[in-house]
């Protein structure tokens, strides 16, 4: 494996691994959402990423960016709820920020694209760090990824670092009081529960780490 680039095959493998992971963890995500939301986050993402995996099977992608654009469009079309537009828009933004038509992206391109994904989530959802949302896992993951890349790390190492940071970010949402999404209706009662969306963001970064692991 070329550890300095993300190509079409690897992008597809990543999204398939993400699909497998959110499907395996459906019940856990749903439980987290039942505690401070409406209990559908696991089922929502399992439905969405299963559709993503199915749409990638047809494949025939030549540009790596198109993989993410297609995945994002599929999430928007299949998930609903808050997480559908947020993840869908994020993946679309990632795909569109990758070099147009390029079969693969280097790590700097990938970092830039992930940045565009995070920006898209923040623009659509308006969440600040600390609001107990996807952002609280996505942002530290991106920071860690960029830092690793700046330090000369290869993809496996950068991905592992991002996944670790996402996991920590997700766990760190537990004591927070939600200020966005359904959990915000609970006011202070949302504190003490880990955010489902931040947790699924961790699963997605962990999937990249898993498929790139040496």
């Amino acid at each position, binding site marked *: 494996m070329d550890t300095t680039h993300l190509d079409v095959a690897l992008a597809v493998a990543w999204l398939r691994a993400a699909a497998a992971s959110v499907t395996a963890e459906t019940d856990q995500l749903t439980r987290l959402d*039942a505690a401070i939301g*409406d209990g559908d986050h696991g089922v929502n993402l399992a439905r969405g990423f299963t559709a993503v995996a199915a749409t990638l099977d047809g494949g025939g992608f030549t540009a790596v960016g198109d993989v993410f654009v297609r995945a994002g469009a599929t999430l928007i079309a299949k998930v*609903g709820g*808050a997480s559908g537009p947020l993840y869908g828009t994020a993946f679309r933004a990632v795909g569109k920020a990758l070099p147009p038509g390029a079969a693969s992206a280097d790590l700097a391109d990938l970092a830039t694209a992930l940045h565009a994904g995070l920006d898209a989530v923040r623009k659509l959802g308006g969440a600040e760090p600390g609001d107990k949302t996807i952002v609280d896992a996505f942002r530290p993951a991106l920071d860690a990824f960029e830092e690793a890349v700046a330090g000369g790390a290869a993809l496996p190492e950068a991905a592992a670092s991002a996944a670790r940071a996402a996991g920590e970010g997700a766990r760190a949402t537990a004591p927070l009081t939600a200020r966005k999404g359904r959990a915000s209706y609970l006011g202070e009662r949302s504190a003490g529960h*880990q955010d489902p969306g931040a*947790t699924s963001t961790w699963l997605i970064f962990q999937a990249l780490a898993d498929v790139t692991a040496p």
Partner: protein
Amino acid sequence: MLWGAGRDHAVGNEAKEPAVKKFINDPADVVAEALAGLAAAHPELRVDVTERYVARASAPRPGKVALVSGGGSGHEPLHGGFVGPGMLDAACPGEVFTSPVPDQILAATKAVDGGAGVVHIVKNYTGDVMNFQLAAELAADEGITVETVLVDDDVAVENSTWTAGRRGTGATLLVEKIAGALAEEGAKLGEVAAVGREVNAASASFAYALTACTTPAAGRPGFDLPDDEIEVGVGIHGEPGRRREKLRPARELVRSAVDALLDAKPLNPGDRTLVLVNGLGATPLLEQYLVFGEVATVLAERGLEISRRLVGNYVTSLDMAGLSITVARLTDEMIRLWDAPVRTPGLRWGV
């Protein structure tokens, strides 16, 4: 341990859950199969089970402003049961408690657009707002003008720019009925949206839950509640409320709820109101009428007139035992539009 605080979360395989105790087949098929049943029961509706929308069989009506609403399933009769003359032109049911997706909303919007524009009536939840927004952008791309009316009447939630804001609950029915009546008369897009916003602004709701509800996917109640405690300030998605309190007599619960409503949206003696006592699913009509009687007593003490009223299960939360109280301040125009004929599966009079 990546599965964090709050509950004990064992990652991985668990004991197989017992079957979900509901009148369903596969939980994944509930919405599609319920739509098939709705289609069989209501020939006057066009139910597109594939695109997932419910429209009037007669839509579009050229020149008429069309009303489209939607949201997660599990709130029936809202929204599909409010499609018909005098109310909605189409509704988009999402998965249970999950907002519909943009494609679906776009398909419904296109199906009922009569060239005079479409009003989207959207309950204020992050997911609903974002999906309807994406749909409106797609509709604009196709040359359809969309005005969005956001419903956010639930005063249990603080209205702050630092939260997702107030939720849309019982007032949704009022907005759909009154704006629907105006659209039926041939009013323009802006007028229909304006009256919808006016109704929302004039409405306040507050809800209590005695039990959690059970989604088909989860198969177990969303939270546990001790025998003598209730959730105060709940929404319609089975989420816990603002706080938990000891059970109290209906008389006292009503008094607290009315206080909360009038604190948030003060009314003056002599104001005319519409009162909706709305069962969330498992609360018997007997109790709902009892509560309506208590509301009538309290409003009379405050010098408020109940000019119109509705009691029943209209904006539900699956099988939650609970109810919401909505009080809306009425104008002459709203009363006229409320009284206008309506013919839908869930609300019908005058025709």
